[in-house]
């Protein structure tokens, strides 16, 4: 995502505090994601009025209310569609999309795939807790096989989606995974995702302390391994990224899996936007052009 550096006013964490405090359960992984996003915006010095934070529905989708930027708390699964419209109407804005695994990979799965192949210039952060929280604990698209929930009390019999492999296959140009307990690492990934010109997908392990007793902080800690620590790993190598995306159980990679910068963004590929954002364009079409439209019909 392109960034807009503030010329004068310094952006501080206090500027980014929302009108109300988060109402997530104590210990929820989403607190760590909120803090990391605020830190990233401060480090990049992006003024809050140039940021639009857009979410769907779910615990993590309450995010826009807890950060002081322009915010849109939309419909379940539809945040990426709304965000695409925002970015195309005003590509000077920094667009952040936040939500959960059910919102993004379940009900919003169609928009997820198509937004990636379009290379819409935004950062999509999924707070992935492998469970439906706000509806009090049902199986999600990332719940592991065998996991017992209220909707599958005898254990999940459906294979989970692999968000990283899916994003790579769908053509996302920046694919990363973070862990909300790894603050510095996560903040760095968010900064990179904002700065990347194109669709940045960031899947974040954000444990649900209330409903998911399988994938806890304790479960993740010994398993997560930073890709940045692997000196031989090349995030420009798509095949290598695909290979790493398949690792699970004993070793779970976090960090930047993949990035390519040679694909035009959706707004960059459309000459209509060359003259600047449409939100500030003249609404009237020049008379010679409109006359030609009518002449065609005569």
């Amino acid at each position, binding site marked *: 995502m392109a960034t807009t550096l503030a010329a004068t006013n310094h952006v501080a964490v206090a500027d980014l505090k929302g009108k109300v405090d988060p109402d997530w359960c104590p210990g929820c992984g989403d607190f760590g994601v909120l803090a990391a996003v605020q830190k990233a915006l401060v480090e990049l010095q992006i003024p809050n009025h140039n940021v639009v934070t857009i979410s769907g529905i779910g615990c993590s989708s309450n995010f826009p209310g807890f950060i002081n930027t322009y915010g849109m708390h*939309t419909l379940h699964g*539809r945040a990426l569609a709304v965000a695409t*419209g925002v970015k195309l*109407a*005003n590509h*000077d804005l920094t667009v952040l999309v936040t939500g959960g695994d059910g919102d993004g990979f379940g009900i919003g799965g169609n928009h997820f795939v198509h937004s990636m192949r379009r290379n819409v210039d935004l950062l999509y952060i999924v707070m992935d807790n492998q469970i439906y929280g706000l509806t009090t604990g049902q199986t999600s698209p990332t719940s592991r096989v065998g996991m017992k929930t209220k909707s599958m009390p005898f254990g999940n019999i459906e294979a989970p989606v692999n968000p990283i492999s899916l994003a790579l296959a769908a053509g996302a140009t920046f694919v990363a995974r973070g862990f909300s307990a790894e603050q510095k690492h996560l903040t760095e990934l968010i900064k990179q995702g904002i700065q990347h010109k194109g669709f940045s997908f960031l899947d974040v392990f954000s444990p649900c302390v209330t409903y998911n007793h399988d994938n806890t902080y304790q479960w993740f800690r010994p398993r997560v391994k930073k890709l940045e620590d692997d000196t031989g790993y090349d995030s420009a190598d798509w095949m290598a990224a695909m290979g790493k995306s398949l690792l699970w159980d004993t070793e779970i990679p976090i960090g930047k899996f993949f990035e390519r910068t040679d694909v035009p963004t959706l707004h960059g590929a459309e000459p*209509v936007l060359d003259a600047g954002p449409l939100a500030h364009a003249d609404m009237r079409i020049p008379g010679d052009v409109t006359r030609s439209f009518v002449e065609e*019909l005569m």
Partner: protein
Amino acid sequence: MKQTFAIGIGGAAGQGVATPGDIFAKIFSRRGLHLNAYNAYQSIIRGGHTFLTIRTGPEKVTNLGDRVDLLIPLNQDAMDRHLRLLTAGAACLYNSDTIKPGVAAEGAQLCPLPVSKLADITRNKVAQNTIALGAGLSMMGVGFQALEEVLAEQFKRKGEAVVSENIGIARVGYEYATANFRPFAWPLPMTGNRSAVLSGNTAMAMGGAAAGVKFYCAYPMSPSTGVLHWMAAHARRAGIMVRQVEDEIGVVNMAIGAAHAGVRSMCATSGGGFALMSEGLGLSAMMETPVVVIDCQRAGPSTGVPTKTEQGDLWQMLGAAFGDYPRALAAPLDIGDCFKVISEIFNIADRFQCPGIVLCDLLLSEGRLSVDPKDLDFDPVIDRGELITNASSVSGANDDGKYKRYKITESGVSPRAIPGVPGHTHTAASDEHDEDGVLISDEFTNPTKRRVMMEKRMRKVAGIEAAVPPPVLWGPHDADVTLIGWGSTKGVIEEACEILTEQGILANQLQIRWLVPLHGDAILDILKDARHTFIVENNYSGQFARYLRSETSFVPNGYIRKYDGEPFMPHHIVEAVKEQLSGKTKLSVPAHEILV
């Protein structure tokens, strides 16, 4: 009665029905004649039966009329379906090599064209169409030069040889008809008028461009796709971002996103796509982000009859999305109105920060009409309402200097700041919220705040009602019969009124354009002196009649309905009125005699 002339061209899809139709239309239009055209077709790309009707005349042609003067069947099937409907004075031009005529009515002229003798059919596969074009124009009293000019334009891209070959074939047909067939009793006149010929879809797309639409997105769905096609083809010249989206859910949400960022944003679909959009309409209403959605109705339910017309989506529009919210709903009355209604509804949607719905149908969307170019005004009034687009705007500030997006106001309208404006950050939420945009739906639930916010939004309904004109009665006030219709039936009801009046039954018309707000009191006032009232509509259950009754308790004397996929013809309505005046029935469902 107004003098008109109608041509019917029938054949299989892929046989080239459209090209001669376009050429006739161009020639009529250049003679200063008005025209109205409609193609009855099926959801296949090759084969089946399509029937194009073009009706022309020196005065406005409001509908397709009751008769075909010149029938051009391009295959046996078209001959068999349509010849029996010709009446005295009409003619049928056909390829006598391949088509056997049936028995024509007394006074109807059968005009066989020995196509293989007149042209080299091994070289030119559509020679029969071109010969028929020339022959038809000869019989209409149109000079050959008009056809020569249009053919030269039509085939210009294919080179000089193709142009002269086609002109040669057309000339043979023209001369053959002059020598062998009786010309029509009424030679086509000429006038000094110049008109544009366009479909309702083109009109709505152009109306959007005129209204300042900068974002248009859609998923292809008949019969709305023409809007997308015009937008896509003209986007770069008009400065409009046009996107094809993965589904209609994505469409409406993307349109709302663009609208929220500050542009006028529009999308179009048909009933099935609209069903997918309905949750998004609620989002537009709740976030108070204006968006305009066009529904081009086709015959439902479900996939229904995708290429046929109906007015069956009214209740879907009235009930779209759950909960109560303000909306505006307009049904354009003709193709010229398709252009005008878009800027009008955008002004309403922008001023009242709510969704605007345009309820069109296949008859208008895909039909074509000649329109005075002056009526395609690209400089309409644009009223964006209370919109804050830069930091110096203070209209949104409260007394304490803080901006509140959903400020409680008397009008219910709160000044709207677009993202990017310093000092106005806020969250727009689909959840219920307070003045400041803070959610009250979950932890902060508060019945008082909910009530206040609900009442704020719903206060906009009164404003919308005041901003939209009530309907008016057309025709004599002392009529015996009042025909009530809505949207696209305007033209055909108008002609039915003329015919009834000629036949001694004085008739007038109440045509509804704004469905929400309905102006029920004004309607009751108009109808209180009416002697016999009949509601005419293209659906099974009388959706408008039921709506009018629910809003006003008004019950008409009878109902005239059609739900076979084809539009009304004037005689359907005339005969139904007579049937009902004689007391035979209160519900007439005219049969469509033309099998298309």
